[in-house]
């Protein structure tokens, strides 16, 4: 069928200053201005946010789920990157 729907935008909300914007869903809108307006109505009816980002979904580049092992597994055996790897004498262990 012929697709007539408005483009898809991903919506990110900053719930309060001091926190990151966080993905919360998506909306359809013809342009950026209306995407913000629709995102406000759909995702912040109860003061869930103080700032909104909308990004056209087609502009988001995502990693391939199949590439998960080569991307993320190499960090698995590098436990020396975590502070808990180092056992220090009790007197100074809160360092």
């Amino acid at each position, binding site marked *: *069928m012929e*697709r*007539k*729907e*408005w483009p*898809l935008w991903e919506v990110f909300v900053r719930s309060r200053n001091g926190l990151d914007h966080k993905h*919360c*869903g*998506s*909306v*359809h809108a*013809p*342009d950026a201005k*209306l995407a913000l307006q629709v995102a406000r*109505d*759909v995702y912040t*009816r*109860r003061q869930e946010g103080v700032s909104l980002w909308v990004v056209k979904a087609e502009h988001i580049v*995502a990693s*391939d*789920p199949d590439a998960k092992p080569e991307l993320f597994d190499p960090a698995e055996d590098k436990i020396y990157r975590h502070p808990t790897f180092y056992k220090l004498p009790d007197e100074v262990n809160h360092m």
Partner: protein
Amino acid sequence: MYTQALDIPQQQPEGNTPPAAENPVYQAEFDAKIDAGGFIEPKDWMPESYRKTLIRQISQHAHSEIVGMLPEGNWITRAPTLKRKAILLAKVQDEGGHGLYLYAAAETLGVSRDELTEALLSGKAKYSSIFNYPTLSWADVGVIGWLVDGAAIMNQIPLCKCSYGPYARAMVRVCKEESFHQRQGYDALLQLMSGTQEQRDMVQDAVNRWWWPSIMMFGPHDKDSVHSGQSARWGIKRISNDDLRQKFVDATVKQAEVLGVTLPDPELKWNEARGHYDFGAIEWDDFWNVVNGHGDCNVDRLAARNKAWNDGAWVREAAMAHAEKHAA
């Protein structure tokens, strides 16, 4: 929101046979994730039958939210006070919002918004049959909040932990807002019950009409439920229809007492041995009659959705033309 229709078969029932493993390695990883109580995310591999089941369930759920705006929207202009009107507007707006969260979740499975809209407007898709009953008096609005949204909450809380990430996250948002829906309904009824005899009769009449449809919202009995077994295996359905229905009945009896209304079931009584309330047999013929399109309002509801969609066409087209002109 209103999940009764969730395991109503649509075109051809898929039956209870397990899906063929299209890719044994991926299938094994998928099964392991489900068994560990993990989440499946949009780009992850999933069996086609899992994808199809979710598209059907999430879209029926979304359609129910959208159609659910109609019976209550019917009372916005006639709400008795400005306060009640503001509350009802907020509630109906929430239902629209819930529909949109859910359409967005369904779209992550590869179905387009156009296809979803088309399925609803053509009558191909199901939505919860609870919305095919008429809202005859102002008390209906309160009773819908109390009983219909109350039943919906029981149905929906387990979905917050379902195995498909986008659906689970949408349901967390929905459930937070749904609690307001139920409480405002009960609050409106409390006020009517403190009024005249005529107002109290109006509440009782609404309870009489909505009680049975509300407990039918949990769907067919477990032994007759076509999709339940597979959905439980996939972590989409965590609690069975009959268990949820019992939980709802148990919770509602006390609420009815406090309100001062009688639930229209002479067989409703506490069963000490079971630790639950027993209740009378459900008239499933009526339920299937409404599901299959013969309720009081099936035709009106779809006509209203089609009219709204068609009347809005010029707005959608003009907004797109404007955006394209300014992008050029």
